[in-house]
């Protein structure tokens, strides 16, 4: 249908993307909104033995068993203290074999979904960031400061997560 085709073209020309912004340990981070499949309230997690401490276990997301990673702990800090606003963002992760895997990440609070212009993006600094620079995809100018757009490919690298 011609109308939507034009619409699509327009969209791709637009130099901006949607991002999901959230707080982890009082710091604002973002991921590309397209990567987030859904956001659920924190719910009970079944621990799977032998795993890295930041792999918290598995939870039931509408009948599917989904692994859950504590983002704060993954960054090298302590375990997230679960509060009222603690949520799990289910991320669509594409693994090394090109297969889609859903993984939940624990975050402290959802901030909002917002648009960031591409021209406001900068390469991530090689050092100086609080977290592993490999985890940062880009830096983005947002409101008065900069926020890190997270690289879920490295943060949720299955090979690393599954390594005992």
């Amino acid at each position, binding site marked *: 249908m011609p109308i939507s085709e034009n619409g699509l073209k327009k969209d791709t020309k637009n130099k901006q993307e949607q991002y999901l912004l959230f707080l982890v340990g009082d710091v604002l981070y973002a991921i590309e909104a397209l990567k987030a499949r859904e956001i659920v309230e924190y719910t009970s997690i079944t621990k799977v*033995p032998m795993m890295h401490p930041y792999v918290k276990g598995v939870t039931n997301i509408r009948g599917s068993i989904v692994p859950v990673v504590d983002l704060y702990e993954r960054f090298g800090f302590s375990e997230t203290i679960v509060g009222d606003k603690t949520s799990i963002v289910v991320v669509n992760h594409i693994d090394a074999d090109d297969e889609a*895997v859903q993984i939940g990440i624990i975050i402290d609070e959802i901030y909002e979904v917002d648009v960031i212009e591409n021209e406001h993006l900068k390469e991530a600094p090689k050092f100086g960031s609080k977290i592993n620079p490999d985890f940062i995809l880009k830096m983005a100018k947002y409101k008065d400061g900069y926020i890190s757009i997270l690289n879920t490919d490295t943060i949720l690298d299955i090979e690393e997560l599954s390594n005992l």
Partner: protein
Amino acid sequence: MNADLELFCDDVDEQLTFMENALISMQENGEDEESIGALFRSMHTIKGTAGMFEFNAVVSFAHTAENLLSEVRDGKVALTEDMIDTFLEVKDYVQKLVDSAVNETPLADADTQKVAELMKILKSMLSTASTDESSAEVDSVEELSDDADSGEALWHISIRLKPSFFTSGMDIINMLSFFTLLGELKKVVFIDRHIPNIEEINPTQAYVGYEILFFTDSPYVEIEEIFEFVIDDVELHIFKANDEDMLKALLENSDAVEDLEELLTKNAFENVLALQEVSKQVEEVPKKEATIQKTIPKKQEKKSFSLRVDSSKIDQLINQISEMVIANAKVSQRAAVFKDNELNEAATILSDMLEEVRTGVMNIRMVQVGDSFNKFKRIVHDVAKKVNKEIDFEIIGGETELDKMVVEKISDPLMHMLRNSIDHGIEMPDEREALGKSREGRVTLKTYPDAGTIVIEISDDGKGLPKEKILEKAIANGIINENHNLSDKDIYNLIFAAGLSTAEEVSDISGRGVGMDVVKRNIESLRGMVEIDSRPGEGSLFTIRLPLTLAIIDGFLVQSGNTKYIIPLEMIQECLELDDHYKEEMAGDEFINLRDYMLPLLDIRSNFNEIDSKSKRENVVVVRYGEYKMGLMVDELFGEFQTVIKPLGKVFENVAGISGGTILGSGEIALIFDIPKLIEEKIKN
């Protein structure tokens, strides 16, 4: 590939399997009518469906084979050993032709030649062979149907679609084109008089029919077979056009709207005209007693039939039922909170029913192993022929039911093991005779249920495994060191270790690039295990143990630390409380004395590095797998739980001892123990 073609391929596979089974059965037990019938029907079905796709090469090949089969069936030619072998080859080449047609890749020259050769052979076997030896090339369909034999006849076929016809999914127009494969349509009249006008018609109902005069050398059953899949959706009368009684009955039964006699007269149905001639002449003759109306013999009583269902649909159903179980558990919970007994009762009934539904759906996945295992007969036959050995192969317990997916996946490993047994296990006939054994080597494939698992045994009465050779090689490859103290059984099981193929040179039969290590891995991926035992000079026995189904188990729910676990119920022998009495007797925390049996213990908490546990009461669940027993130390026992196994996914693939997860009624997740793995780990340490 489009869906129709896929279906066609599935169908051909199935028909070829039928053929093979029929041929092998006759090879073993001699000629029997039923098998010949099955053979004929399969070939016929393949011809028909291939015709729908205009795969003419397949059609013409199948047609030639069918001609011979029809003569065999009619007793015109006798079925010989050679003929069976030829048909086995025909079967292979039908597959090749179909593959080439479906994939649109031309057949290799050698194969084309072979097909032509086979056609020649088939034709030479016909009773009428001498008359048409000249035309033994790959001909077109038309030519083939022309090489006539004696049974030519003009048939009158009357078809009325029942209102439900369109729901059968079959296309009547397509079916008409089948006729031209069998013979010549002399007259076709479309019966449209029952079609209502546009305001009254129910467009999904069928109102039409056909009257046909059909000239063919095919017998009645073959014509009827065109309607095989719609036999309940049509009113069908097939009779020889000169059968006056049948024609009269048909005309008399036609209603005023249809006025069949007038219609057929107008269309010059010669049999109708002839009948009118006759009746004019005998008008004065008093009417005979009303002829008993012979209806067409129906295709037996309504038999149960099978469906081809995408297994993902079943999985989806099971998932949905599981969701319902969970939702219903919440209802029960609320009912308890509100102390609403009636609601609670209703929820209980619902939950029982859901359980039944779930079991029923699970059963859909179960198939008898025999259907699939019968194909091994052919493989054994071929392999034996190739290596010049004589094999008496028996399948026992073919009626045992197993998850279809498991059956499919176990097929390759079994095939490999059977090949091995024949190639390496069984001696040459002369050698056997010299040893005082029968010339025929026995190979048996036996399947039976045992303790909630299915056991498949492959045994042979050959020379047994070469123990010394295995040891030598295992030491050379560094799998074990020289001063081992392995039992004979341990040594034999070394053949499953990677890189230990004992055959000095890889033979054409069991070579094929897979070793026993691959066999073992395949079996383990099905949550099964395999073992071997062997006696020099007496033979070998492979024992495979498999779970009944991959998707669901009866589980026993326990807790250790903060995690709930499921133990497959069928592996549980008993549960004990680990009281002071046992604790005193415990030998260094590793064993307890259970009725004079030293039972190894596995502490789940320490095994899985769980730190804290609130419960002081410790329980031991005694599990058995094969001949091994072990006690699992856990904190709490909750009881039985129907468990739908879900994979935990790649993130957890390295966690040994956990095979999956399941969602409990509360929505919580419990982890499922991989008992064989836990036992294996325990033995290793």
